């Protein structure tokens, strides 16, 4: 059950034989967590999150259902109006849906973290001499599974509707990898919301208010040039548009464009800003 983690071990001694000498115990204490221990602990927390996913498969419902439902719905409702017919709308739509589902999945990362933190077991995590980033970063590693699932299902559903990505297998794979990476990076923002919000419900509320404008005020579902000038200007700086353009270029044309760079840069900025904020906020709750 733990082969992945078994090989990673910092050279620590086993449990001390006796607890009778507190002075020795004090002398053994370390001032801080080493990087190696942080990695081990993060992987252990990822293992826990994966176990929980496997035991509660119902939490994959939204991840699985949303791509299927939204792809079909948007394709048939907007296809004719925007691109003349459903089939020619798909190359525009599918990358948009991928971005949307990956972002929605990020929201689940924040909500579940909040739910988890309200449980008694988090008291134990807090009382252990462990890295403060591990309880946050661990679940996010496990969540890569979700992003992968969401992105893959969207492409499969698109293909079922008749979408034939011009970028070929490599292009689609590239688009999926980019979407997963971006999802992971953006999830840090929602993890931060998870650490500051009062309840899982409020995490969801706040996240929705951010997600809806971001996804709909982008080029995800319509060509940006059909929008009023001020809105078109906004979609150009909206990071979701970069992700959508980058995945379109990859999946439809098989080319790596500068949009990929912008997307990765945005992701990096989110991580650099929100990772420390999340850890600080988690620490402050003690």
């Amino acid at each position, binding site marked *: 059950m733990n082969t992945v983690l078994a090989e990673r071990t910092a050279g620590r001694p086993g449990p001390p034989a006796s607890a009778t000498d507190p002075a020795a*115990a*004090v002398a053994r204490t370390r*001032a801080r967590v080493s990087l190696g221990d942080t990695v081990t602990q993060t992987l252990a927390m990822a293992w826990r999150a994966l176990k*929980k996913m496997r035991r509660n498969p119902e939490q994959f419902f939204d991840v699985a259902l949303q791509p299927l439902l939204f792809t079909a719905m948007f394709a048939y409702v907007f296809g004719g109006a925007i691109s003349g017919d459903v089939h020619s709308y798909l190359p525009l739509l599918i990358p948009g849906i991928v971005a949307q589902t990956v972002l929605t999945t990020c929201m689940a990362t924040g909500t579940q973290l909040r739910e988890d933190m309200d449980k008694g077991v988090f008291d134990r995590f807090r009382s252990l001499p462990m890295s403060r980033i591990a309880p946050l970063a661990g679940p996010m590693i496990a969540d890569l599974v979700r992003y992968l699932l969401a992105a893959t299902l969207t492409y499969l559903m698109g293909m079922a509707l008749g979408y034939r990505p011009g970028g070929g297998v490599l292009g689609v794979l590239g688009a999926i990898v980019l979407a997963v990476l971006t999802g992971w990076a953006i999830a840090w923002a929602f993890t931060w919301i998870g650490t500051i919000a009062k309840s899982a419900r409020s995490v969801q509320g706040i996240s929705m208010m951010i997600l809806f404008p971001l996804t709909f005020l982008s080029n995800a579902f319509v060509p940006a040039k059909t929008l009023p000038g001020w809105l078109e200007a906004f979609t150009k700086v909206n990071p979701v548009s970069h992700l959508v353009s980058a995945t379109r270029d990859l999946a439809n044309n098989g080319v790596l464009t500068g949009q990929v760079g912008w997307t990765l840069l945005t992701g990096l900025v989110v991580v650099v800003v929100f990772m420390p904020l999340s850890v600080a906020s988690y620490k402050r709750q*003690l």
Partner: protein
Amino acid sequence: MTALPAVQASGLVKRFGDLRAVDQIDLEVRHGEIFGVLGPNGAGKTTMLKMLATLLTIDGGRAEIFGVDVAAEPHRVRQLIGVTGQYASVDEDLSATENLWLFGRLQGLRSADARSTARRLLAQFGLEEAADRRISEFSGGMRRRLDLAASLITRPPLIFLDEPTTGLDPRTRGQMWDTIRELVSDGCTVLLTTQYLDEADQLADRVCVIDHGRKVAEGTPDALKTQVGDSTLQLELATGADAALARAVVLRVLGEEAVSTPESGRLNVPLDIADRAADVLIALREANVAIASVSVAKPSLDEVFLALTGHGAEDAADAGSGDPAGIVPGQDTPSRAGISTEVAR
């Protein structure tokens, strides 16, 4: 044995808005003892324990665990303590083995070591058969045992137990007490909170009583009890009019004033020795005072509180929010016992 105290705290303060959940508490827990923090729900016990265990920030005063400052070096302190919370701090979705393995890994054990430690602890706590079951299927007593086992993985020299037996049935409670005693015989120091006087009495070497965030008494359980008398003789007279006569008899036999309760015809007589109840009863019969019912009870937490603070334990519970971690519904003090068991003692 070392001179270093396990816990040394002075002037501890925790505020929640206007409420001072913990108000200027001084505490010293010696190495190798079981120290009991006694008080009703909402008195601030859990809050204080969480501050010492680095789970809540300290708003005022300072605390040291084996000489390590809690506020300045929480990471070091966490390596010296094990914390068992009031609500099972184990993962519901994992099995017992998985829980212990995870906590072992998080504390730097190699995977194989973590697994063997888990096996050893499950055997020690009689949970072998439930090793692969999910915690959500565990009974309350099993959860507490697993929870305690999880606190012992690295054999920390100081264990915090927050109400270790609240909600357990008497048999499981007794087992828990035995386990706690074993910990100390292994060289651990234990700080536990409880709302049961008899639990403090059974386990603790020393006790402090907390009320509204303040320490109102400290000492051995025996010293605490003698402040309220060893036990109380409760009399219900057949006719309320005999009350004055009965009080006179009690004063003559014991040299103590009986206390009238609000119900008419009821008297509470403090006894330093339970055996003296018989003397009182005989004297009452000789004086022709008819008695409707009689019982001898150990002093309850409520009576201790009444004696120490001038108000009952319920007052603090009503004040409520002192224990932000949540409040267990009020429970009756369990130490009331009929006369038969008391005489047998």
